[in-house]
């Protein structure tokens, strides 16, 4: 049976010109709310009578200035503390309201975006939309809430410090980037988290939390007419941003040579990470880099698994790039088997990459990677949250249609494309090598 409700015979909001259909492709409709520019993505999915409501703001730690790092993440926390209509004093605490109807609720911050989401029984969809609309412009950002939350965030920061691999990853980025804000950790530098003021957060909020800096995604057992009507009712009265934000996204200077950092941890864990400076997600080379990622490290047939894991050098190996709005990093990560050295693992990684740069992928490797992607596309549509999460990253990278045309882009990639991007990006003068070993080891 299908849980998707029949589409409305008439669509009053569309007919009255409140929305414009921007595009309809791959089972997703993109609408624009004319009054303020809010984009609304609607993706019907029939597995169960539930839906995910996710709002993605184009603001991340990549939009933070020195001294104010961690502002995006701090704000993400405060957005749950209350808005004019939804706050504990009124008995309408956001978490309580949403969780009381069984919603899975949370928010995350990355370098390029902040997202808030609720996956909930479809009959409560309006509640999630009301909350998002109210806190988009009417968050309280109360001083007392802020101080209580500061300790919570410092505890979160300490939890990160407990994990030496997590720390190494942060160090890798802050070494690879010197001027671009990707240098900053998403959670912020500790001294900034300790000192950031309410005034700074308020200004940050008033710069980025506007409907035309956001995309609302609704995935699930939903009817388009009903969604648009609710969005119009709750978001329609919000004004568009008064001035476009001045984002501090400088161009990172070209790297001249390899960079290296070595860290020692208290335990017995040995890890090697290499980050190569690559292109942004909307660049024409991004699809070939995704195929390269699969050939290098997806599954036991991949080259790095064979060279590192199957030979007993590494317990785990991974490679890949998170889609990013500005030129980002392609990572290779290996957790060493005790007794093996960073030097031998690093040498194997470099040799594996050099071989690929010289001879390119085999036809079988390319076919396997493209079959994996075809299956992944079907799997991404298995579950409302999963699909919304993939859409969220595409929105953050700059174009939700990355999701819609993803498979098409991948299918066009040739063996020579993979060879070319491997040669162009996985070079010594683009890489930062980060080493973690036991203290005294």
């Amino acid at each position: 049976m299908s849980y998707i409700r029949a589409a409305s015979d008439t669509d009053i909001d569309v007919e009255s010109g409140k929305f414009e259909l921007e595009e309809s492709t791959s089972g997703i409709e993109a609408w624009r709310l004319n009054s303020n520019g809010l984009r609304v993505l609607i993706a019907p999915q029939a597995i169960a009578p539930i839906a995910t409501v996710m709002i993605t703001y184009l603001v991340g730690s990549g939009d933070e200035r020195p001294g104010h790092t961690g502002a995006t993440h701090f704000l993400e926390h405060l957005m749950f503390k209350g808005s004019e209509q939804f706050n504990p004093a009124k008995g309408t605490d956001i978490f309580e309201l949403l969780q009381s109807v069984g919603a899975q609720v949370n928010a995350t911050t990355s370098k390029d975006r902040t997202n808030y989401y609720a996956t909930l029984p479809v009959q409560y969809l309006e509640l999630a939309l009301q909350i998002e609309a109210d806190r988009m412009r009417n968050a309280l950002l109360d001083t007392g809430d802020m101080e209580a939350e500061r300790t919570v965030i410092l505890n979160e920061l300490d939890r990160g410090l407990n994990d030496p691999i997590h720390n190494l990853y942060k160090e890798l980025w802050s070494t690879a980037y010197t001027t671009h804000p990707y240098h900053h950790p998403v959670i912020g530098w500790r001294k900034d988290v300790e000192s950031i003021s309410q005034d700074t957060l308020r200004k940050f909020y008033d710069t980025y939390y506007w409907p035309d800096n956001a995309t609302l995604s609704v995935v699930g057992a939903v009817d388009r007419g009903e969604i648009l009507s609710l969005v119009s009712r709750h978001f329609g009265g919000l004004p568009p941003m008064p001035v476009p934000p001045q984002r501090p996204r400088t161009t990172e200077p070209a790297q001249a040579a390899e960079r290296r950092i070595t860290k020692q941890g208290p335990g017995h864990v040995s890890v090697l990470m290499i980050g190569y400076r690559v292109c942004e997600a909307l660049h024409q080379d991004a699809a070939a880099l995704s195929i390269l990622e699969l050939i290098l490290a997806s599954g036991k047939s991949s080259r790095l698994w064979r060279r590192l894991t199957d030979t007993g050098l590494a317990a785990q190996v991974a490679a890949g790039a998170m889609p990013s709005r500005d030129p980002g990093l392609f990572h290779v990560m290996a957790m060493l088997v005790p007794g093996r050295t960073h030097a031998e693992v690093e040498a194997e990684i470099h040799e594996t990459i050099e071989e690929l740069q010289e001879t390119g992928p085999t036809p079988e490797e390319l076919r396997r990677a493209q079959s994996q992607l075809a299956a992944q596309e079907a799997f991404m549509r298995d579950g409302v949250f999963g699909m919304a999460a993939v859409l969220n990253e595409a929105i953050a990278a700059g174009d939700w249609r990355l999701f819609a045309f993803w498979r098409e882009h991948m299918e066009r990639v040739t063996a020579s494309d993979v060879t070319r991007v491997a040669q162009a990006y996985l070079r010594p003068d683009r890489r930062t090598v980060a080493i973690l070993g036991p203290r005294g080891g």
Partner: protein
Amino acid sequence: MSVITRISDRVSEVDVGPCRLLLLPVDVPQVVSWAGSIATYPNLERGEALVQTLTADLLDKGTRLRDRFALSDELERRGARLTINASGLRISFRGRTLEHDMPEVMALLAEILTQPLLNESEFVKAKARLNASLEHARDSTAQRAQGALSRRLYCTNHPAFLPALEDTLQALATLSVDDIHTFYKGHMGPNDLVMAMTGDLNLDACVQAAEATFTHWAGQSTQATHVESASPEAPGQVQIPMKEKPALDVRLGHAIRLRRTDADWLPLHVATYILGGNFSSRLMKRVRQELGLTYGISAHLQGLADGAEGYYSTSMSLGAADLARGLDATRSVIEEFVREGPSAKELEEKKTTIAGAYQVGLSTTGSIAGRLHSNAVRGLEVAYLDEFVNEVKSLTLERVREVLSKHISPAALHTVVAGTLPE
């Protein structure tokens, strides 16, 4: 608004040879997911849990028909996913593939389960990988704290007992590939074999695939040797000093005389949820939102997966400077909650929460297959998939309070703290 129908009415249940097969078609084009397991009953006292972990790792590293690369190529060129894990007293397998590849992937699963090579060279590599994972776990405050709590509550022969990581590393060093062969021969067979499949199903094709996969499997039958009851020490404190771990992992817990299938489980589960089940629980409201002492605090019933008696546990993360305040605040919330019980309003709210979360939890083919499978392993009827929500809704305040005060005792709590302890 959608009409919510009973999912369980659409489940087909078929006995295919030794396999109890549960099939549920759902509207997700092309995708098929499955979750299954067999009972293996490792002898926990003899350390066979570790042997079982290695055996599960080795199953897909080559069979008598194909080497490890040919096996992985068969799966990866279809984009299929198949994982095999040791979980307590069972070995479980989960996977997802495109509908048209399902018969071939099931045939591979059969080959992996019934004809593994388990050879020496792969064993050496698997040991080294496990060694690295255990070293990583030794560096985790959460794993060290959880393990220490379990060892205060159970003997080595209980499924919830977690051996010290140092002991596990020592035991690992002494294992040989012969131990793996002995375990495989003695424990691996279609014992209590259950598999659930959901997604874009052709029911006849599923039954045929299961027949081809399982009907000729004649492995050993095996018997349970574990104990099901807790044997707790007197309540006390354990401190695990670790360097450079500014966030302390804290556990407050005690054993409970309760199994997952007992009538008291559901009311106690709901009570625990009110105390520490989500962001709007009592513990989160007080210790995180009001006092700002922790990033996260939660309460759970744990150790119930294998039909044995489990334990109650509160988990939280605290900075060293906040340890004393955090512990005091937490104990105070637990004491008040056990003394007075939840309010009627809290119970009604959390009933809706749990019912809604249950519905949300059944939103992918994998999660539905997982739930069908775990219910079947516990001996619950298929209809329980729908009846769970009704049972939650019918709970009374008196019943929840009675069960809470019967099973949870603040005076019996053990305290474990792992991390860089305050001076």
